C-alpha cells in the first residue's frame, strides 16, 4: 500500500469553519504544509477565504491577504513584486481562489498575470459553482448539474480552463484532487520550484453544493478521476501534456450516483455527458501523443 508522504508541519490550524468533511480544508492542509513557511497567501472571496479567515483569527500560519473576487492573480502579482523589491525573491506567493473567482470574475486578472508570466502559484479550488454564497452556477459548472440558478440542470458545458491557460504558454499547469494527497503534494512541490506563473486546479466535491455525504468527498474525487470526468494531468510550457493516471476504467454513472445534483438525469443526458467525457479523454490522449515527453 502506498503511504501518504508529505509532512504536516502545522501550517494549517484546527478550528477553521469549513463544513465537517470538507475536502477544500483537506486540500489547504496539504498545500499550505507543502508550500512551507517562506510564503505569503492571497485569497479571493470564496469558501477558502472563509476557511482561512474569520477576523481576528487566522487558520494559516503564513500571512494572508484577503483581496477582491476579481483580483486574486493581480494582488498576488503585486505582493510578489513587492517582496522582490525587498530582496525576498525566494518567498512563494500563493493565490487561493474559487472557480467563480477563476473561470468567471477573476479571469481577466489571471489572463494578464499569465501573459506577463508573473511568478505566482495560483490555486483554483474548483467546486464547480459559487458555493459559499449558496450554490449558484459558474462557467465551471458541468452540463446537467443542478445549482441554485440552474434548477433544471445547466444547459451548457463546463469551460475548459486548462486549454485556456495552456494558450498562455505558462510554464506549469496541473490538475489534482483530494482523492490522491501524494499527487497533490508532489504537484505543489514541483510548482514551487518553477519560476513564472503556475496554476493548479484542485477538484473539490462540495458536500452541500453537490449533495455528497459527509464522509464521501474523497471517494467522489477518486471516481471523478477514475471515470475520466476530471483527468489528472500536467501541462508544461502550454505544449507538453502528461496524463498522470492513464487509465479511465469506470463509467461516469458511479461518479454521478454519489451526487444529488445529477439525480434528475435521464439516460440520454447521462449518455451525452459520457460522450463529452470520452471525447475530452481522447483529445487529451492526442495531446499527450504529440508532446515531446518533456517533464520538469
Amino acid at each position: 500500500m502506498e503511504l501518504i508522504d508529505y509532512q504536516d508541519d502545522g501550517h494549517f490550524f484546527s478550528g477553521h469553519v469549513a463544513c465537517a468533511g470538507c475536502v477544500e480544508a483537506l486540500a489547504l492542509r496539504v498545500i499550505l504544509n507543502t508550500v512551507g513557511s517562506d510564503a505569503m497567501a492571497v485569497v479571493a472571496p470564496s469558501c477558502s477565504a472563509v476557511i482561512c479567515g474569520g477576523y481576528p483569527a487566522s487558520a494559516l500560519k503564513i500571512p494572508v491577504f484577503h483581496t477582491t473576487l476579481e483580483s486574486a492573480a493581480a494582488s498576488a502579482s503585486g505582493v510578489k513584486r513587492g517582496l522582490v523589491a525587498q530582496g525576498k525573491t525566494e518567498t512563494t506567493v500563493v493565490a487561493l481562489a474559487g472557480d467563480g473567482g477563476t473561470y468567471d470574475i477573476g479571469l481577466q486578472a489571471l489572463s494578464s498575470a499569465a501573459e506577463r508570466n508573473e511568478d505566482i502559484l495560483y490555486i483554483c479550488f474548483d467546486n464547480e459553482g459559487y458555493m459559499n454564497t449558496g450554490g449558484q452556477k459558474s462557467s465551471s459548472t458541468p452540463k446537467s448539474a443542478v445549482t441554485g440558478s440552474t434548477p433544471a440542470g445547466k444547459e451548457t458545458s463546463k469551460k475548459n480552463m486548462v486549454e485556456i491557460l495552456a494558450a498562455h504558454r505558462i510554464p506549469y499547469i496541473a490538475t489534482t484532487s483530494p482523492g490522491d494527497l501524494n499527487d497533490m503534494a508532489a504537484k505543489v512541490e514541483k510548482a514551487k520550484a518553477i519560476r513564472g506563473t503556475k496554476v493548479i486546479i484542485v477538484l473539490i466535491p462540495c458536500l452541500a453544493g453537490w449533495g455528497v455525504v459527509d464522509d464521501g468527498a474523497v471517494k467522489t474525487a477518486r471516481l471523478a478521476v477514475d471515470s475520466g470526468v476530471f483527468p489528472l494531468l500536467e501541462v508544461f510550457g502550454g505544449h507538453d501534456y502528461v496524463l498522470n493516471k492513464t487509465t479511465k476504467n469506470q463509467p461516469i454513472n458511479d461518479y454521478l450516483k454519489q451526487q444529488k445534483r445529477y439525480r434528475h438525469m435521464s439516460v440520454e443526458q447521462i449518455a451525452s455527458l459520457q460522450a463529452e467525457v470520452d471525447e475530452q479523454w481522447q483529445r487529451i490522449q492526442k495531446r499527450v501523443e504529440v508532446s515531446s515527453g518533456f517533464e520538469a
Partner: protein
Amino acid sequence: MVATDKQQASPLWTTTTSEVRLTGTWREAKPDYHVAPSPCHGACPVQGDIASWIQQVSRSEYYGAWLTLMENNPFPAIAGRICHHPCETACNRQQLDETVGICSLERFVGDMALTQSWALPAIKQDDDCSVAIVGGGPAGLSCAYQLRRRGFKVALYEARDQLGGLMRYGIPSYRLDRAILDAEIERIIDLGIDLHLEVELQDQAALKRLHKEYDAVYLATGASQSKNLPMLDYQQPWVLDSAAFLAAMSHGQNMLLGERILVIGGGSAAIDTARSARRLGKAVTILALEPEHLLPAQTIEVTEALEEGVEFVCGAMMQSTQVKDKGVQLHCVKVDFSAGAERGEFAIDVLTGSEFNLVADTVIPAIGQQVDMDRWAGLLAADQGLAQTDQGWQTSCRGIFAGGDMASMDRFVTHAVGMGKQAAQAISHYLRPHTEVAQVKTEKPVGFEAINSYYYPISKRQKQKQTELETRLDGFSEVQQALSDHGAMIEAGRCFSCGTCTYCDNCFYHCPDMAITKLATSEIDGSPNRAQSGPSRGIGYSIKSDYCKGCGLCVAECPTGSIIMREDTGCSTKQESCS
C-alpha cells in the same frame, strides 16, 4: 516577513489562530479506534492472529511473526503444508480478487524458523502442578506445548515409538516432509516434557491410575478404529486396511499385492492411499460415493491425484465381490448422493440399471475412522461414538479432559491443535483458577464493506510452485514448494489487515480538521513503499475532542476497518485513543 510559529501568525491583522474556536462542538458522532477480529481469525481452527503476523511479515519482522504464530499453534511449518485452511475460505480479499495465501505464508514463516533454528522464549516460572497427556498426535502435542509454556509439569504417554499421530502414520511425506515434522515436534519436547514412548494405556483402570498420579489428565488418543464396509470380507488376503497401509508406508514398508489397486472412499485417507500406491508404480482407481465436486478431500488433493494418474469412479458404490482367476471382480452400481445437514451425514439412492464391474488385485477401504470408547467404559461417558465433553473439554470425569479426533468430528490437524490449546487453557484454569482467563473476541468480524479497497490495487495471489509431474511419481518428496522471499513479501502485502491497525497514518492525513494526534512516532519504518526521508509514522492515535467535527472521513479512508463512528453524547471530553 516570515512567520515561523502560531504566536506570530499574521501579526499585522489578526490577533490569534483559529484554534480558539472549538469546532468539535458541531459533532454528533465521534470516531473510535478499535481492534476487531478479522474473518480469517474467526474461521481459523487455532484462532490465530492472522492479520497481526501477516503484517509482521510485510514489515520483514519474521521472528516476531513466528512468535505471533506460535502463540496459538506450535506447528506453523506443518499447518502451512497440510491445513485445510478455512481461513482462506473466509478471507475478505476474495471479494476484491483472490483470497490471501495465508497457508503458504504460514509455511514460509514456519520454514524460516526451522532453517534459522529460532528458539522459543524461556519458560518463565515452573508450577508444581502436573498434567498427564495421553496420545502424541497434534491434539496431545498442542496441549503439552501450551501447558508447558505456562510452567506446568507435563508427562506425555504415547503408544507408538514415535510422536506425531496421524501426521506421521497417516499423512504421507510427499505432503509433509518428515524432517519438518520431526523438527517441529522436537521443539516442543525440548521445552522439557517427560516423555513415555511405547506406553499404551490399556483400559479405564490405567487411566484412573494416571488420574491419581497427576493433577489433571488430557486424553487425545484419536480415532483409531477403521469403519468397516459390511459387503467386504476383511479376512481376505486381498483386503487391506488403509490405516495399516499408510502406517507401514511411513516406515517405508510396502504391503500391496498385485498391480491393480482399488481404493474405496473420497476423503484425505483415500486420496493419500491412492497417491502412495501410484508412487509404488501401481494402477490405482478410487471408488467414491460422492460426485467429484463433493468429495470430502481437499480440492488440491483431488487435483494432484488426477494429475498423477489416479482414476476416479465417483458417485458409485460396491455391492459385492467375486474372486476370479485374474483378480477380484467388484460389482458396483451408480448412486444419487445427497449430503446431509451435518458433516459425514448423507443419503443415497441406487440408480437402477446402472450396474458395472471393476477388477483389482488389492482392495483398500478408507471410509473413515471411529473412536474406541469401549476402552474407557465405566469411567468416561460417550456421546454418539465420541468422548463426551463440556465446553471446556472436560469429560464426564472431573479432572480428565479430552480432545482431537476422539472428541470431535472436525477431523483435521489444526482443529486438533486448536482443541489442544483450548483444553490447556481450561486445564490451567482448573488448576489455577485465578491466573488463566480465556480470551474470546466477541466482536463481529470486520466485513469487506469496512475495508477501503482503493488502497489495494488488483493483485493476483502468489501461487506455490509444484514439483514437476514427471519426477513426482519417482518418490515421496514434497509436491508443494515454498513461496520465494519475494513472493511471500507480495503475498503479505495483499492482506487487508482487517480490523488491525497498520499505523499507515491515513486517518491522520485525511482529517480536514487536524483533529487526530499521533500518540508517539516511530522513525523506524519497515514499510517497503516508504521513502527513506518520509515523515515519521504514528504508533497510536487519539482524537481531539475540541476539533473533531465528526465527519467520518478518517473512518472512510482507513484501509483496515480499524475505526468506527460512535454516537457522541457530548458530555465526555475523554480522548478516544488507540495504541
